[in-house]
């Protein structure tokens, strides 16, 4: 074989196998710059240790500029969204839209509280509307019968919610998901059948009407509608605050660490998930009861439709479309469904089909609702990127330009190229004679071909580098691979035992030759 420099074996006329893609992107969105020598007066939300925005300063690896990245932009979106909801009713006089807006805010409040159970705690409870309805009926009944003022309906609803909370919390710690959903569904149905048949609760009139209300009579119709909306909006804000308070604190973390089917693991790491679940059921049930009281005050009464299956399914649609486990999902999902349901009321039954279609599309195409789309899109892009890259790249071969952008130590890019050419060359040196030469004399002066091979093997990185392990000195050896990580012991490579050090050395050599030829 005539000698050629292993690094100069490529054909100069031949370019890369795949043409290189141009890389490099312009940034269209400006990023905040660090404060540098100026003092940064960092703000927090009142009474918490939380910062207004979660940011992190970082050096842009491309030009080393000190940039501040907002790690969570959701507070900004919330701020914009809530501001819109605050001024939106001033922009229209349309009674349909304004009353729909109030319904949206109340339903959003219910969904936010429900999300604590179905999202944070991960338990499929369908008793939500039953609790709201019970609160509403209780409040309305007391208001109508004993002439209690509107505001008394809120604590009454809360008290009824508390009772319901205890009732639904106890089975929740024993029953598995599907059975629990059935149980709660049954509870809701029971309530509906009860109020439909009970004379006290207006079986004759199809509901209880005439309760006290917080909406002042002396306003114009539009004014009343706007007032009602702002009251409902305030309720929604309270529900949002409750959601943040539970979900963002210790209780929320405990619950998220112990979702359904993971209870045993959570218990093993010391989480008392039963206690946490009872707590969240009681908190959310009281809140739902209060919302029920508000509902009765808002609608001046209560109707059995609160307990009906179609209301429940509508709410489930809201949550599924928005995405389970996210406050923004609850609110935006509610907005979409309420908009279709109430604003397109002229479409009649068709709008229900439309809601079903939206829900179907959402379930079929997204993994976690509307607000999971971003993460889903990014994962999909990652997948496509890897697929395309794998197609353009040779295993262990030259780094392609888009991959080079991800390697901080640029010398590693050259090393890959060098190593690839080296291995291609070394493969040509592997012959039966070379292997036999090593077998006869694993240590000492070797032929040119063999020493090039052994020099390459010996200089390799530590991770997965082979070594010999002594079982019995002078008699029994095995082959191991080193971890390359301090504190992590080597692993056995196979189950073969060698009876002399020479055999063990040669076994390592054969493994290395094998790895080389396979690379």
């Amino acid at each position, binding site marked *: 074989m005539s000698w050629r420099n292993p690094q100069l074996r490529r054909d100069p006329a031949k370019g890369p196998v795949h043409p290189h893609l141009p890389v490099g992107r312009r940034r269209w969105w400006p990023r905040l710059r*660090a*404060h*540098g*020598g*100026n*003092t*940064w*007066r*960092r703000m*927090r939300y009142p009474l*918490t*240790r939380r910062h207004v925005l979660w940011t*992190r*300063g*970082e*050096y842009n690896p491309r*030009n*080393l*500029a*000190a940039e*501040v990245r907002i790690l969570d932009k959701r507070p900004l979106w919330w701020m914009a969204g809530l501001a819109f909801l605050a001024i939106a009713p001033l922009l229209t006089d349309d009674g349909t839209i304004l009353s729909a807006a109030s319904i949206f805010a109340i339903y959003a409040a219910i969904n936010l509280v429900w999300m604590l159970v179905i999202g944070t705690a991960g338990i499929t409870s369908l008793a939500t509307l039953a609790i709201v309805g019970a609160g509403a009926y209780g409040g309305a009944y007391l208001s109508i019968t004993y002439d209690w003022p509107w505001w008394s309906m809120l604590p009454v609803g809360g008290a009824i919610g508390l009772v319901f909370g205890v009732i639904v919390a106890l089975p929740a710690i024993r029953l598995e998901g599907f059975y629990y959903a059935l149980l709660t569904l049954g509870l809701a149905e029971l309530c509906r059948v009860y109020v439909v048949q009970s004379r006290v609760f207006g079986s004759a009139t199809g509901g209880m009407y005439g309760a006290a209300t917080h909406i002042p009579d002396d306003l114009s119709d539009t004014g009343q509608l706007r007032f009602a909306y702002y009251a409902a909006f305030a309720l929604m804000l309270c529900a949002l605050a409750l959601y943040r308070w539970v979900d963002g604190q210790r209780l929320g973390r405990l619950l998220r660490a112990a979702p359904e089917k993971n209870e045993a693991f959570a218990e093993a790491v010391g989480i008392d998930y039963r206690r946490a679940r009872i707590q969240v059921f009681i908190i959310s049930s009281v809140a739902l009861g209060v919302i029920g009281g508000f509902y009765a005050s808002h609608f001046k009464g209560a109707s059995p439709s609160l307990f009906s299956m179609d209301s429940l399914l509508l709410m489930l649609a809201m949550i599924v479309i928005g995405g389970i486990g996210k406050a923004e999902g609850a609110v935006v999902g509610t907005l979409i469904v309420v908009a279709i349901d109430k604003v397109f009321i002229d479409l009649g039954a068709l709008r229900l089909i439309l809601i079903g279609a939206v829900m179907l599309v959402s379930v079929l195409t997204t993994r976690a609702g509307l607000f999971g789309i971003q993460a889903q899109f990014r994962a999909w892009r990652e997948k496509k990127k890897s697929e395309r890259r794998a197609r353009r790249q040779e295993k262990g071969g030259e780094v392609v330009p888009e991959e080079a952008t991800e390697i901080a130590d640029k010398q590693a890019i050259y090393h890959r190229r060098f190593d690839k050419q080296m291995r291609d060359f070394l493969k040509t040196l592997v012959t039966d004679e070379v292997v036999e030469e090593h077998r006869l004399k694993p*240590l*000492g*002066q070797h032929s040119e071909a063999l*020493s090039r091979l*052994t*020099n390459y*093997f*010996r*200089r*390799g*990185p*530590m991770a997965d*580098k*082979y*070594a*010999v*392990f*002594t079982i019995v*000195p*002078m008699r029994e*050896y095995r082959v*191991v691979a*080193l971890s390359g990580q*301090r*504190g*992590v*012991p*080597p692993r056995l490579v196979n189950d073969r035992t060698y009876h002399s*050090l020479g055999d*063990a*050395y040669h076994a*390592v050599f054969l493994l290395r030759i094998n790895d080389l030829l396979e690379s």
Partner: protein
Amino acid sequence: MAKIKLFGYCDRMSVKAGDTLRFMLSADGTDTAQFQLVRLIHGDQHPDGPGFMEVEVDAPLNRQWPVRKQYAQIGSYLEVPDPDGRLAPEGDFTVHAFIWPATPKSGRQVIAGRWSVTDVAGWALGIDTNGFLEFWMGDGTRVDAVRSEMPLLAQSWYFVAASFHAASGRVTLYQESVLNRYNSLLSKIVPLEYRSHVTESVRVRPGRPTAPFLVAGATEHNARRGRFVSQLYNGKVDRFGVQGRCLSRAELDAIRDGGEPPADGLIARWDTTAGYTDRGIGNTVVDTGPHGLHAEGVNRPVRAQTGWNWTGREDCFRLAPAQYGGVEFHDDAIEDCCWEPVCDYTIPDALKSGCYAVRIRAGEPGREAEDHIPFFVRAARPSAPIALLMPTASYLAYANEHLAFDAPIAQAIVSHTPVLSESDVEMYRNREFGLSTYDHHADGAGVCYTSYRRPIVNMRPKYRLAAMGFPWQFPADLSIVAWLEHLGYDYEILTDEDLHRDGVAALAPYRMVINGTHAEYYSEPMLDATEDYLAQGGRLLYLSGNGYYWVIGFPEDKPWLMEVRKLDSGSRAWQARPGEHYLQTTGEKSGLWRHRGRAPQKLVGTGFASEGMDESQPFRRMPDSHHKAVSWIFEGVEGDIIGDFGLALGGAAGVEIDRYDLSLGTPPHTRILASSEGHSDNYPKVSEEILYNFPGMGGTQDFQIRADMTYFTTQSHGAVFSASSIAWASALPCKGFDNNVSRVMKNVVDAFLKPGPLPGSEFIAEEKHWR
């Protein structure tokens, strides 16, 4: 049943009659272990030799002892004793320091503070898990923190501070770069914004923390271990302090620019450059403030390091102490395991000088776990003519080396696949066993301190060095012991520790001294003593390769601790950073003795030429060996080939080999008796010999790759015989000690034992040949 593991050490290396030794042991899987005192004769189990040999010795400690698992603190830090709680101010305060973080992203690290991890209480200025400067505090249940805006960059000097305003709970962080042309990894041309100033109100008040004030660590508690220190910092800290009020931006700027902190409200000001002497730096960091709250180093923080204001002109702390305020911390440094002793042993008068060990066993007979804790007994009153000098300083240098596991080039250097044993794996698993001067700390810095107050798995009989697959140092040196025993010579043991402490007085009583297989690390007193001994007519058998190589130092009060700095040349596992070439312990320049004007050739005729661990070769006699002045050395030796056998790779010349060189100070009347040949290309020329690098420096192409067996005489009937090869001693036990290497040794030893003129010393006339 859990697998039994035993690892121990003793508190002293060298003892004599009347001294008391304490034995420390940590045991897994058993609560008792059998102790037995043994005298070690031979340590290599190679089938071509006599195998492992030990002799049991009666001693009161020979019995079952209760043992348990013990833990050790790793990581260096400073602790400030503060009995009056002055460093726990009730009101406002500021803490500030110059820092050079080595690995800002290696987990939470405390720079300075009183932080209790277990109690979540106190406060600390440190680095968070993402590499940002952070000041955090806890009240026992809740933690609050203020973080800087830009992350800290590795190996860059900063001045950082945090001030706490108690009334408003306002914390102000200060982070400014003090980078100059010399002191940091990057230059000022790199467009980086290092600065960050953040002010923020926190909701937690630290109260008066009870955790001790630490630099580079936090206090933690565990039911099994008790108190220990965690959240250790990697990197350097320079002058730091605590002020009893909030320092303004302008006041901090003044400190950043090199000013002293204002006297108003000063609680403590640690001047890391105070107390330096021409002869080294101690372990105490001096507080020049009003209360004198001096900080004590634990696990030997490295000092004499360049500080934030190093200007690159002066290269030693002795020249510009104010520029050498750097104190370097490593989270895996260890000086002393500090285990509770299991038992102690007072050396009786009757115990013969020798290599001893306490053999510890536990478990079922036949499958028991075993450890040997070696120590050396020297003679209280020397009486034997031969001293065997055990190169314990070099044992320390290699103690628990991780080459086979951690050094990617190690296999290329030794041209071997490593051969690991169970104790290697155990050592690799336990960070508590520490590192050798051949390793890097986890933060990338070379290890410059090593200690024997920890289990040293490679200083054990039977042990074979993982990287090379044969015994190294102590177990190899036992082949000389076995040879002396087999031939019935009367010898006593000395160690480097004795030589360093007692100087020439340690050697003087002996007619001859035999040095071990690898006497590589030498302090100045050790080298002086050897030189003086030879000048006074002492006789030396130099059986090492690569001896008298590195300059080392021992702290005066800590003989178990050794320091070395590996400089810009020599076969070095790491290289000291610019400006950090001088020993903290003595103030001397470290590196190679050759580069301080004392090449080994000046002392023993030969010095480091090459190393290779694939094959050893025999010596072949050189023409000069036939001169009557030296031919007696080969009496009874047939043929020219000496040592074509051996337990270290099958030859007497190999592993590490030395050669004669007049230009490096080999005494001019030295004769080369025999030289090795045929070394492979895995024996390259050593780096200190290379000016320009060019191809062809391996054993098959370069004539300087060889071991030279040399001999020369000194005044007053002194002489030096140099075998110049590590493999020499491992050839002695072959063929039942009856071989030509053994014969050559015997001829030399017998001649050296006789006082008065040496054989052949009369053949000094010039040659007049007719033939």
